[in-house]
């Protein structure tokens, strides 16, 4: 490969042209690289509109909103500071010790839906739909929609068809992560009314390593279609570990002292409308349930 031709310049010529060095680099590519289009900077899911605005244009600077936010955060900080004077987790120790049931989410109005987020395969280009609204008489929440298993036509996705509802991560003051501590309890208690479809309950605990971020502990929720409510009690010992939907070989029980969120997923490949009504979600301590873990923890290929 031949080297690019560089003009021969005398020493005096170099001094004269020292201010303008660009001609020396004539054979070299321009210093400034062409600016990538904004749309090339991240993955754009099919169906999402193109975003050509720079990132700083997307932030709404509003003094009133900022002041309101600061007030909220300082109020939370004050509550956090004084809660330990009452007892662990802001409750007196006797109440904490004698507590056998705790209702975590009770759907009694539009405000109770703000702690939840819904999602379906529409985000990856699918055709399912999901909606969440308050049930009749503000007594429950209704999760409904349409499941469609047709995969998105993007050439790479082979399977599709899921709808999910998940609780948001609880946040302390200044948007610090807070966790649910269910270590005093051993059973999940739900009151639901479904349409006969099987759902999956997913519990996502706090993890340390980045490659554990998709770890979740799952179990099934079989709903019985009909006008009657169902009281479902699932011990936490029944939840098995899955990573990105794949059940792991090495199983262990879920640690309940740092839980980020709980969710319900429908993916039974039965296309059509669905409905799930939830009255409350709580945890309880069943002293008669002494099982640590429902599945074998032995190694499948033990070293001799």
């Amino acid at each position, binding site marked *: 490969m031949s080297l690019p031709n560089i003009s021969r310049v005398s020493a005096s010529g170099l001094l004269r042209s020292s201010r303008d060095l660009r001609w020396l680099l004539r054979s070299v590519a321009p210093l400034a690289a062409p600016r990538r289009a904004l749309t090339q900077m991240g993955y754009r899911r099919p169906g999402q509109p193109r975003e050509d605005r720079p990132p700083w244009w997307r932030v709404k600077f509003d003094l009133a909103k900022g002041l309101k936010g600061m007030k909220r955060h300082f109020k939370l900080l004050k509550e956090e500071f004084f809660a330990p004077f009452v007892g662990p987790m802001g409750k007196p120790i006797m109440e904490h*010790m004698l507590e056998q049931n705790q209702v975590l989410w009770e759907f009694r109005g539009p405000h109770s839906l703000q702690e939840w987020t819904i999602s379906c395969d529409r985000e990856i280009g699918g055709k399912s739909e999901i909606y969440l609204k308050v049930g009749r008489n503000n007594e429950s929440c209704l999760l409904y929609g349409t499941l469609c298993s047709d995969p998105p036509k993007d050439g790479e996705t082979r399977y599709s068809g899921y709808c999910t509802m998940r609780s948001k991560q609880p946040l302390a003051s200044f948007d610090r992560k807070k966790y649910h501590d269910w270590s*005093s309890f051993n059973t999940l208690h739900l009151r639901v009314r479904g349409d006969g479809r099987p759902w999956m309950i997913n519990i996502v605990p706090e993890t340390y390593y980045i490659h554990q971020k998709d770890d979740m502990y799952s179990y099934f929720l079989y709903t019985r279609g009909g006008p009657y409510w169902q009281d479902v009690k699932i011990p936490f010992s029944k939840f098995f570990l899955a990573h990105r939907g794949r059940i792991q070989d090495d199983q262990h029980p879920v640690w309940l002292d740092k839980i980020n969120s709980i969710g319900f997923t429908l993916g039974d490949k039965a296309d059509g409308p669905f409905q799930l009504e939830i009255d409350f979600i709580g945890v309880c301590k069943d002293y008669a349930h002494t099982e640590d873990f429902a599945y074998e923890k032995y190694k499948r290929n033990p070293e001799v």
Partner: protein
Amino acid sequence: MAPLIYSALIISLGLGTTMTFASTHWYLAWMGIEINTLAIIPLMAQNHIPRAIEATTKYFFVQATASATLLFAGISNAFLTGQWNITYTPYTLTSTLITLALAMKIGLAPLHSWMPEVMQGLNLLTGLILSTWQKLAPLYLIYQIQPNNPNIFIALGLMSIIVGGWGGFNQVQLRKILAYSSIAHLGWMILILSFSPPLALLTIIIYILMTFSLFSSFMLTRTTHINSLSTTWAKIPILTISTPLILLSLGGLPPLTGFMPKWMILQELTKQSLCPLATMAALSSLFSLYFYLRLSYAMTLTMPPNNPAGTLPWRLNPQHNTLPLALTTTSTICLLPMTPAIMSLMPF
């Protein structure tokens, strides 16, 4: 874990501490501490559960940082003084660096943040080794270095007593409570170290006795949460009597053994004309006493809110050897009258 590997790790733990005890050279002392750290890592991670691996990783990072700092300080000391003897640290910079590195190793405030999280991720047996055996080698080195200025020891000690009490205030996880208890007791030990090293030795020995008995009690009843303490009466009734006494001994209440080191330390501090310091230490230990009392209350004076007849656990013969528990519990409860004899044995 395979028995051979388990034995090798336990022997390595013993080897590391013994090597540090037997050394006068900084390199050998550091090597002993490193062997200890590396030997306990597989013991901590033997259960491949995320929380245990997290605890192991955090412990490794902290101990590696402290070891690197210790080695650097030892080499700096050798560079400045021209010799490697552990006991000769005339320069304030190197002795302070060594003290801080060793304080990080044993979890003294303000370098204590790793301790509760690490203890929470371990099982009770590994937690016991971490609270007792792993403290011996660094404490021996602290014992030897004799810094020029005792103020650093006073600051570390007082801060640890306060933080150990304040941190355990609203904990409901027993392992975290025991971590904060360890921080507080080591604070007492460090506080008196520069004035009376034999008293510090007495404190650590009695702390090891009390912690061993408490951990063994919790291992027998398999309790890791304050709520499960209330069902202890149904599992092993005798522990419902002895464990609160162990807890109150840890809190330093007479006439139990735990009062002995605190009493002697306060007496020594008063003799050194450090009455405000003694007062602050005594008042700060009330925080720790509060959560020990809370645990005792949970165990003995509360009943679980259920029908006991339907949910009593099976009372089988314990599989563990209970002789160590019996011996250490007796020592934890009954040794206070022997204080004069113990004091006469101390090399004052």
